[in-house]
């Protein structure tokens, strides 16, 4: 599994790409307000990280993110759960779905 340094590198590279910033100007303490990351940028940043690390971030996990560190912490935690087979993601919810199709998909990486 990728280490914390790798996750940090991936997140900072994604922010730099999306916001057209120099990576040197992005630290774990940078806030998304400072970096002028809006909600559409956030979707793109997560997409870039997902592509890079080849896993999926469940939408419901994308809350309360204020700093770069919050994202790195969150992704590290999700990757750990994923490695342990405890991350149920993504959830393919179907209205009136049977147990097989309602949130039943297990982690696939």
């Amino acid at each position, binding site marked *: 599994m990728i280490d914390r340094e790798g996750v940090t590198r991936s997140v900072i590279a994604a922010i730099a790409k999306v916001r*057209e910033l120099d990576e040197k100007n992005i630290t774990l303490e940078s806030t998304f307000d400072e970096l002028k990351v809006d909600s*559409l940028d956030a*979707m*793109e940043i*997560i*997409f870039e990280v*997902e592509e890079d690390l080849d896993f*999926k971030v469940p939408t419901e996990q994308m809350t309360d993110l204020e700093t770069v560190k919050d994202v790195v912490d969150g992704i590290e935690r999700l990757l750990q759960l994923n490695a342990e087979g405890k991350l149920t993601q993504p959830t393919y919810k179907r209205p009136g779905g049977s147990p097989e199709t309602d949130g039943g998909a297990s982690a696939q990486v």
Partner: protein
Amino acid sequence: MTHGEAGSRRRVVVTGTGVISALGNSRDEFWSAMTEGRSGIGPIEDVDIATITFSQGGQVRGFDPAEFFESRGEREIDRSTQFGLIAAKEAIEQSGLEWTDELRARTGVVTGCAVGGIGTQDTCFKRLYGEGKSRSHPHTIPRIMSNAGASQISMRYGFMGPVYTLSTACASSNHAIGLAFWNLRGGLCDLMVAGGHEALFSRGHLGAWDAIRVVSHDTCRPFTKDRPGMIVGEGGAMLVLETLEAAEARNATILAELCGFGMTADAHHLTMPSQDGPARAIELALADGNIAPKEVGYVNAHGTGTDANDANEIAAIKQVFGDHAKNLLVSSTKSMTGHAIGAAGAIEAVATVLALRDGVAPPTANFTEPDPACDLDVVPNEARRGSFDAAISNTFAFGGLNAVLAFRAWK
């Protein structure tokens, strides 16, 4: 102008034009190529056409978004939308307008676009179906939407009036310009940027054109006997429309007056045109502009180069103009640009405005042998000088939708 004047019929003039097409990335390149009868049609580049039977297209060549756009946001939007922004910029610059908050609030944008960001969609689908990826780029939806061009122009310039997009296949841009004109004439707003954009060179979409068997394996030869069909094109074009009163008040250079718009439907067949639908659209455009048929000197034809369109269009023109038809210069500039589908009407509106401004009818290029079914003066191969009081530009879409614009020379 205020909302209180809504309902009055104000005169509308064109004070800016912008175009990017197979004939180059600017209005000057476009118009010099067109008046020299040079075709921009050539071998299709940058698309895998191994499974496509045709090989020629009217592509915008050597286009590097980095030359036009500073922000990543604009560099990475769909090519179609980029064409719209580039054309709008050129048109707005030519107009020489000085922007105020009040004017921005009363400025609208109406665009025509038939298929939206189909290049983006093609890339997205190729990832999912071809490359086995399971996720798409989060900007895919805002890049694909057909109104992306109108929205991007609105956001870049801060235009907050009526902003919308018309999608009526090959007639999209004429519907867009026509409704922008009517909105402006009726007092709904004080300024309009109107036109269209299209970029559909993707393997998936070209394959669909191949299936309908109307695309030429040669080049585009409108009105020629045994003409081989249409050529798919791409590009963007925009007009700046404002009231005559406002243009005169600021001493703007007026390029032409947009005075009439007519639209009809054939209610007949998805792909086969009727003669009556196009004829009625031309009549309505002339009536809307108070133009007598004998005042018209130039017709920018829909002129796709297909067997069905060209003969039918000539018959419709004869039906409307009667004896005067033989005096008309009727050319198809698609012979040089290809058929840019949702952008075609806007590209041809620019050609029509410049034809009136300069007194030059651009030719029908690639013309070889006359067709008895197209026996009007189709301006074969060489541009013709003439003093035109008025001109019309025709667009007739699949689905039987007809939209015609009528312009007067500004003298």
